[in-house]
């Protein structure tokens, strides 16, 4: 579609949002209907899969008795600490390596040879070193955050506009000022898209860690429900994870839009 037509349809969408959303609702509604029917007619036995209506009831129940909150809180705490530590470290070393040749020679080869190790492969080692407590889960998320953020940060710094760096040079700015006002802001868009990828990986890894070794958290909640044939709880847990994952992504999208509000991009004319 051409830009003009795309923009035109976006405008039309604003004028009649009802039509726009009602169209998007059709497919999920049909899927839910099919699913409900499949369970009701015993096509899927109710011990294996819960019907949507049962899931809704269970969701309200688990919310009311606060057990959903309890597990969600445990998971969110792990994610928050691990994500904060991992992204900070990734950005710190990314900036260092991006800005300094000395740091590049000193640490980049080591970091680049550790990054290809998939997060899940760290789990056994982390359990041996830190045990099955919080530290091993948080450090797993941290390692993955670090690995995902290091490259985009260093890349963002290295690809900063040479002309702007020259402006700072001509104005006699110190290296710290150049980093603070030119290089780091240049890296912000790639750092933030890196953070979104990191967040997805963080949820995945945390659930894996909770499945392997935990007695609380949403990952454990889902897995425990499966083990004891509570399909309704299992899906309630899955939905909670979906909502939380979407929320964290939404927060990062808002943050990115705020930090890059100075520029006009494709999405500003297309409403994507």
């Amino acid at each position, binding site marked *: 579609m051409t830009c003009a037509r795309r923009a035109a349809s976006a405008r039309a969408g604003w004028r009649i949002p009802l039509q726009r959303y009602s169209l998007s609702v059709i497919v999920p509604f049909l899927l839910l209907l099919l699913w409900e029917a499949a369970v009701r007619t015993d096509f899927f036995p109710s011990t294996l899969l819960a019907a949507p209506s049962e899931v809704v009831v269970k969701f309200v129940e688990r919310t009311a008795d606060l057990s959903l909150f309890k597990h969600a809180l445990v998971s969110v705490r792990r994610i928050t600490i691990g994500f904060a530590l991992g992204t900070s470290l990734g950005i710190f070393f990314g900036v260092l390596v991006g800005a300094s040749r000395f740091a590049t020679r000193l640490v980049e080869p080591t970091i680049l040879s550790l990054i290809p190790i998939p997060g899940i492969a760290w789990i056994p080692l982390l359990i041996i070193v830190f045990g099955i407590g919080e530290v091993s889960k948080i450090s797993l998320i941290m390692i993955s955050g670090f690995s995902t953020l290091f490259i985009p940060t260093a890349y963002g710094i290295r690809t900063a506009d040479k002309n*702007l760096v020259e402006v700072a040079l001509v104005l*006699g700015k110190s290296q710290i000022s150049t980093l603070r006002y030119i290089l780091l802001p240049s890296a912000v868009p790639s750092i933030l898209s890196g953070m979104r990828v990191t967040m997805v990986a963080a949820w995945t890894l945390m659930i894996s860690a909770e499945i392997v070794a935990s007695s609380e958290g949403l990952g454990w909640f889902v897995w425990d429900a499966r083990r004891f044939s509570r399909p309704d709880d299992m899906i309630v847990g899955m939905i909670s994870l979906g909502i939380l994952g979407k929320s964290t992504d939404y927060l990062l999208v808002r943050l990115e839009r705020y930090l890059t509000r*100075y520029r006009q991009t494709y999405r500003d004319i297309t409403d994507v």
Partner: protein
Amino acid sequence: MSKGLAVSIERKKFIVNGDSLEVFSGIRFEIGPSEFAVLLGPSGCGKTTLLRLILGLDNDYEGTIELDGRLISGPGLDRGIVFQEPRLIPWMSVQDNIAFALPHFKSTGGNDDDQVSHLITLTGLSGFENAWPNQLSGGMSQRVAIARALVNVPNLLLMDEPLGALDSHTRMRLQRELARIHDQESITTLMVTHDVDEAVFLGDKIIVLTDRVAEISKVFAVDLSKPRDRVGRAFVQLRSQVLAVLNE
């Protein structure tokens, strides 16, 4: 101690693919205090290279460049520069872009000091203080770049084809503005251009360079009163003389 800019370059070479390429030999000129000098020459003759030497971005040449009697050895706030592209910092407002040139720039605001607001008024940017660079037209962006170059009250203002990328209407308007700003601030100025009209309109002195290896082919002292009349007889006469030298 002599005031103004004194350039005396014996030789400047570039190494291109292992061969040494001579850019200029024997370039000598002076610009007096408050003088508006224009460096005119065919594209590729080394005008931008000369500006980089005066800026102190390149010290690899034989000769000396002195500003107010002091030898230039590196970048410094005694020289302000306007590049051909505005080179504004996209994530800073107009006001912060201008204030960024100040040595005590703070990102946390408080940059609306007297000098910054004076320049915003001087360059006709009032009302645009908080705009983002991408909301500005080419002409407006270049005004911000000019304000940024002037905010530290430099002893020398350097401009590298600052109006080269603008449409002819905006260009003529900004030429009038530059003449007015120079008249008000009387800062010694060196402007590089390849536009003869612009040179005759703005310059107190026009230095015409030859094609490479660049040498000075002629220096015109422009004795016309300002503001200049682009269609006046003296203007047109001088314009054709400069053009003739340039095309030699």
